């Protein structure tokens, strides 16, 4: 057992998978000798060389398409977007080629697209976006978003071994801010399974990514007021783990959905709709969503703070629901 950061967990997963399976390789901008904009691939170039830690020209569509083609002939490419925001340039290849290959002509496309996403780092509109919404209505794509270092490693390994295109949302804010004690031996975190980040009985807070930590902060403070929150960390966003969602609602009968993604058309809408469909009789109050407002991510610290959901917003939502 050893303690590593979220960022180190990602790197370890890459390193171990590349050692285990020669078909795994990484491509993207500046991932090579430089080690990537966030230094996630640092050291891997020296170990695996120019063709397995492969610098590309500045061309997201081109190199994502190339990853797809390599996957079709047996490789397991991991694409690094320098920032998740640039995945918009590769949208067509992901949505129309990768996502549909298997359905259309039976060809698995085992690619992983690493998307360093999320705000709270003063990145402004183009270096802070949550991009899961772009792909959330696209059948054929899988989306994961680890909240802990443990899951960051286990989900990336699972994603690499998975036979479908997986968008791996790694939250930039968490890179060096959180740590976990990780087993020495190989493990994966299965795609499609949420986890209970905190057991509780009064209200369920369903969330993922960096917001899991915001939820925990809120839960701590709510506990002091005698309110017990159950926190569900979705981990996989597409497809959603319906069972865990349904189970928690049946247990607590009250739901707050929390995400950093903007509200309209966010993951929370789907979670809410699922609950209304499957747990209507178990609900003791409205389903409240705490999410970023429907705006781009503003740059100034003052504005970004009201953009990013805070623990106090979660607390207010829970308290409102408890009064219900």
């Amino acid at each position, binding site marked *: 057992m050893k303690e590593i950061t979220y960022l180190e967990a990602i790197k370890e997963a890459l390193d171990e998978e590349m050692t285990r399976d020669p078909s795994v*390789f990484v491509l993207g901008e500046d991932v090579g000798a430089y080690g990537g904009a966030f230094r996630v691939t640092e050291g891997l170039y020296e170990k695996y060389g120019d*063709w*397995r830690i*492969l610098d*590309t*020209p500045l*061309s997201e*569509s*081109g*190199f*994502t*398409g*190339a*990853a*797809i*083609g*390599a*996957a*079709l*002939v*047996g*490789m397991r*490419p991991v694409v690094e977007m320098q920032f998740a925001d640039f995945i918009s340039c590769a949208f*067509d*290849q992901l949505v*129309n*080629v990768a996502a*549909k*290959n*298997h*359905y*259309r*002509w*039976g*060809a*698995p*496309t*085992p690619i992983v697209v690493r998307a360093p996403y999320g705000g709270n780092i003063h990145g402004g509109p183009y270096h802070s976006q949550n991009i899961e919404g772009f792909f959330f209505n696209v*059948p*054929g794509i*899988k989306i994961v978003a680890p909240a802990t270092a443990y899951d960051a490693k286990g989900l990336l390994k699972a994603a690499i071994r*998975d*036979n*479908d295109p997986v968008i791996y949302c790694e939250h930039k804010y968490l890179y060096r801010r959180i740590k976990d004690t990780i087993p020495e031996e190989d493990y994966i975190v299965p*795609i*499609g399974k949420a986890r209970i980040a905190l057991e509780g009985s009064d209200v369920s807070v369903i969330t993922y990514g960096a917001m899991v930590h915001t939820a925990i902060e809120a839960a701590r403070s709510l506990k002091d007021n005698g309110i017990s929150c159950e926190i569900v960390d979705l981990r*996989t966003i597409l*497809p959603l*783990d*319906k*069972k*865990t969602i349904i189970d928690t609602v049946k247990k607590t009968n009250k739901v707050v959905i929390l995400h950093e993604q903007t509200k309209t058309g966010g993951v929370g809408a789907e979670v809410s709709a699922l609950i209304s469909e499957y747990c209507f009789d178990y609900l003791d109050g409205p389903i409240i969503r705490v999410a970023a407002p429907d705006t781009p991510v503003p740059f100034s610290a003052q504005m970004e703070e009201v953009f990013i959901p805070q623990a106090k917003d979660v607390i207010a939502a829970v308290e409102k629901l408890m009064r219900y």
Partner: protein
Amino acid sequence: MEIKREDLLNLYYYLKFTRRLEDRITSLYHQGKILGGVWTSNGMEAISVGYSYALEKNDIAAPYFRDIGVFLVRGITAKRIMAHYLGKKTGVSGGREGNVHMGDLNFGIFGFPSHLADNYPVGTGAALAFKIRGEKRVVAACTGDGGTSRGDFHEAMNFAAVRKLPIVFICNNNQYAYSTPVRFQMAIRNVAERALAYGMNSKTVDGNNVVEVYKTAREACEIARNGGGPTFIECKTMRMHGHSEHDSAKYVPKELLEEWKKKDPILTMEKYLLENSFAKKDELDGIDLRAKKEIEDAEKFAEESPYPDPGECFKGVYATPIEAT
């Protein structure tokens, strides 16, 4: 480069096979038996036949939608293709897809995504895999003149050139993208000039001469296979029908069609074979008959095949489905 007589006759066979198959598909479409739309390679068969015949069995083709010849040359049966067009269970895609939107990894053919030029980057990826693994395999990827205006064309050409990937890029320059003539698509004379931006070798060939297409592609494949990097091959031809069967193509000057009618790739090949005594007329007729027969069988097979179970709609989205919870 020498070409064996056997290969010449095969090329002739595939030209005929492609023409007859698409003619039949067109009829079935007009009879209402094929739904959606039909796009053919009529008058342009030499390109798909020529470049795919240049590939080895282990190579990969990443075709575009006028490349039905690639499917035949690589060994997909007319039966499966016909059933595919009719939306049958026994077709290449089991009914999930229609027209030239099909692919089959067992035959080294990537599915064609409708979005033009998308298969250029995808093709580079397979070439990259071969390079990484040190395999002596190559890729041929194709798009139309229209597709060369897309960003994906640029990104793929550039990447292949930088990394000297074993890929041959084919461009079917049939002088139009739908209704848009090449002069409204680009301010250059030959599409091949596009390759200058990447430091990539290029060739412009007569796309109606299957032997020339084949030879040029074959040479480019050998260069690619031996580490010499990519080549861009512009095949000049003419779209002899409308863009699709919906389109009467009034915008194409009649004289242009008249002129190119004389250059029909099948006539050209027939003439070449006869004049150089590679074959006699009756041998060619026999080949034609073989193609005709196969297509008749294919049609029968397709017509008799069942439609897919509607429930198939729900299957196959993921290669690794998540257990239902």
